[in-house]
């Protein structure tokens, strides 16, 4: 009806021409109407789109209000069986706004009634200051928090914090370590995995078995008491995966009371301490000599006379004063024989061998407290001689255990680890000795427990093998004769070793039962024997009859002995 063309006169009564103003108004109205139509079309289109096409349904899951999952700021640490070793608990910490506190004197006195060990004078001084935030006491128990609340002192308030708790306490203190009051790792795994633990998430599973840890802790503590030793160390390692099942250093400390830890207890003898290990090194010396092919189990050396070199005299502790075969040198722990064996191989090959089995570098275990070995700067002949029986080189017990594990597991070196490895998985290792040499070493170690210096380490049906070690401690620049480091390193079952067990006592003194002896065979070997008797059944090691034909054949060793100047063959 509305148009630019004039309306035909005959169809209307108004015949006047349309004024220009009205014409403009109409066309504007038309434009506006068109624009509105477009706008409505857009709105309608969007409405159809939203209601029919996009997200046509109600959301299937309602959005939950509030948090429903519980998490702590720091992840838990558990043992290989999932037993809690460290966790974080929420606690309330008391602080004050000194500007709001009305009567500082009264507040301090009242607080002391519920927190008895509070220093009233100090708190009063703090409350008199004009600071907006002062800590009164951190990590209150719920009961203390309630008591403080009931005092109704204005200006006091609580801040929710987390506190690290160690349910297993002193038992695993040197492994797990502890944190400071702000939950930053200071010692042990807490320090080594500080970042990872702080990222919340799943618990950190260690390779430690708390039951094994207890067994070795208990036996070592009781031996320490019996022999009045000043310290001790113990390690149990899975020879095939390198997992550390137990690591004990005595004396120990309570990680729940970090302020009360003495310097002596803080020291980790199992990884941080480096010691001259003594005769346990003969395992490495013999393996090295056998592996080069320079000697066989049938070879032997003249061990009649002590060796004199420079100002030293090298003697045998269990002197036989005759020609000794290789198994006898190992069994009776002859220093003279070992020295001659090492000289046959030479210092250069010995140094190379020690490097290969990890004796020249700090142990790669995941603890911040790892000691660097003390090794000779120049590896001369005299060094080779003393190192053959474990003197003139100081290593940590962890290095020794890891080295022996690679000697008995078929000859493959794997890094020791404190982190749980998936079952049956063997980390890639490097071959250090041949499988045949490893097999011979097993027979020799078994011989020591059956007939040699390590008889006290025998455990019923567990087929223990091992080697004793007794070293005089270096005090200042000289050896102290009365201060010994007595150790025993054992493995079981010797047909196919699964675990290495190490025990060491620091400065033990002999008793009437040991005839005054404080050597490895008398003080440390029984610890290993008892530990293996306890943990063997626990770890599912099947007991065998050591007298059975099959076992005898597999552990048999031919020993050439000399009697009245003639060499004879004896079989063990």
């Amino acid at each position, binding site marked *: 009806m509305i148009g630019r063309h004039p309306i035909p006169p005959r169809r209307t009564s108004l015949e006047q021409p349309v004024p220009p103003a009205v014409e403009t108004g109409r066309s504007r109205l038309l434009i506006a109407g068109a624009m509105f139509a477009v706008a409505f079309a857009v709105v309608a289109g969007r409405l159809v789109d939203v209601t029919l096409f996009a997200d046509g349904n109600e959301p299937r899951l309602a959005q939950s209000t*509030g948090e429903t999952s519980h998490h702590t700021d720091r992840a838990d640490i558990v043992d290989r069986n999932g037993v809690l070793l460290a966790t974080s608990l929420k606690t309330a910490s008391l602080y004050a706004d000194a500007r709001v506190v009305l009567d500082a004197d009264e507040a301090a006195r009242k607080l002391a009634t519920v927190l008895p060990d509070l220093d009233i004078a100090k708190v009063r001084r703090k409350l008199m200051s004009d600071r907006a935030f002062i800590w009164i006491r951190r990590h209150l128990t719920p009961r203390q928090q309630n008591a403080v609340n009931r005092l109704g002192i204005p200006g006091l308030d609580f801040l929710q914090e987390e506190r690290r708790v160690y349910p297993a306490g002193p038992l695993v203190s040197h492994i797990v370590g502890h944190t400071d009051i702000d939950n930053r790792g200071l010692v042990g795994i807490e320090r080594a995995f500080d970042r990872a633990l702080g990222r919340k998430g799943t618990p950190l599973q260690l390779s430690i078995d708390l039951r094994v840890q207890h067994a070795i802790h208990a036996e070592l503590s009781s031996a320490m008491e019996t022999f009045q030793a000043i310290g001790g160390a113990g390690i149990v390692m899975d020879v095939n995966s390198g997992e550390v099942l137990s690591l004990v250093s005595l004396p120990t400390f309570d990680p729940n009371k970090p302020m009360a830890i003495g310097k002596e207890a803080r020291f980790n003898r199992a990884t941080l301490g480096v010691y001259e290990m003594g005769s346990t090194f003969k395992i490495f010396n013999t393996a090295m000599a056998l592996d080069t092919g320079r000697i066989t189990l049938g070879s032997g050396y003249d061990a009649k006379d002590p060796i004199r070199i420079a100002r030293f005299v090298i003697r045998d502790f269990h002197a036989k004063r005759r020609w000794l075969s290789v198994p006898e040198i190992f069994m009776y722990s002859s220093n003279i024989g070992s020295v001659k064996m090492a000289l046959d191989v030479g210092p250069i090959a010995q140094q190379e061998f020690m490097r290969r089995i990890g004796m020249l570098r700090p142990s790669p275990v995941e603890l911040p407290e790892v000691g660097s070995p003390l090794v000779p700067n120049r590896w001369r002949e005299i060094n080779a001689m003393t190192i053959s029986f474990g003197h003139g080189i100081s290593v940590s017990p962890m290095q020794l255990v890891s080295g022996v594990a690679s000697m008995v597991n078929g000859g493959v070196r794997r890094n020791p680890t404190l982190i749980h490895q998936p079952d049956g998985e063997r980390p890639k290792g490097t071959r250090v000795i041949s499988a045949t040499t490893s097999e011979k070493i097993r027979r020799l170690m078994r011989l020591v427990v059956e007939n040699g210096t390590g008889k006290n380490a025998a455990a019923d049906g567990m087929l223990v093998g091992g080697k004793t070690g007794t070293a005089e401690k270096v005090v200042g620049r000289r050896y102290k004769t009365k201060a010994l480091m007595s150790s025993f390193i054992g493995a079981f079952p010797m047909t196919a070793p699964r675990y290495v067990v190490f025990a060491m006592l620091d400065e033990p003194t002999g008793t009437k039962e040991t005839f005054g002896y404080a050597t490895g065979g008398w003080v440390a070997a029984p610890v290993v024997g008892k530990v293996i008797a306890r943990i063997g059944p626990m770890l599912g090691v099947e007991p065998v009859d050591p007298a059975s034909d099959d076992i005898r054949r597999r552990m048999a060793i031919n020993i050439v002995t000399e009697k009245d100047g003639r060499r004879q063959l004896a079989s063990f």
Partner: protein
Amino acid sequence: MMRGGTIFWMALAVMAGIGLFLLKYEVAEMEDQLADINRETLINLEAVHVLKAEWSYLNRPQRLETLGRDLLSLEPVKARQTLDISDIPLRPDSAAEIPAATATPPAADHLPPLLAKYRRDP
């Protein structure tokens, strides 16, 4: 006719309004309930967490050992108390061969070596 339609639509609109109003309050109430339950869950989870810590504390091997020694008449398993399954003699083939109840235990030389070794003599 026109008026009837208007009344119908108006009534419908009012009813829809009232319905929506009631529904909104019902949902709000349910959301409050959910928040309460969530808060309670969280408190319980925290309590469980504390209890777990306490449980591990009470299960310290030292404590269990002491309790076991004092309260139970059990001893740790020794290696010689375990046997291989193949060391246990098979049952005789037919029922007739089973000795009478009064039968004496088989002689030591009928037992496999391990069993014979650990047999308790009367």
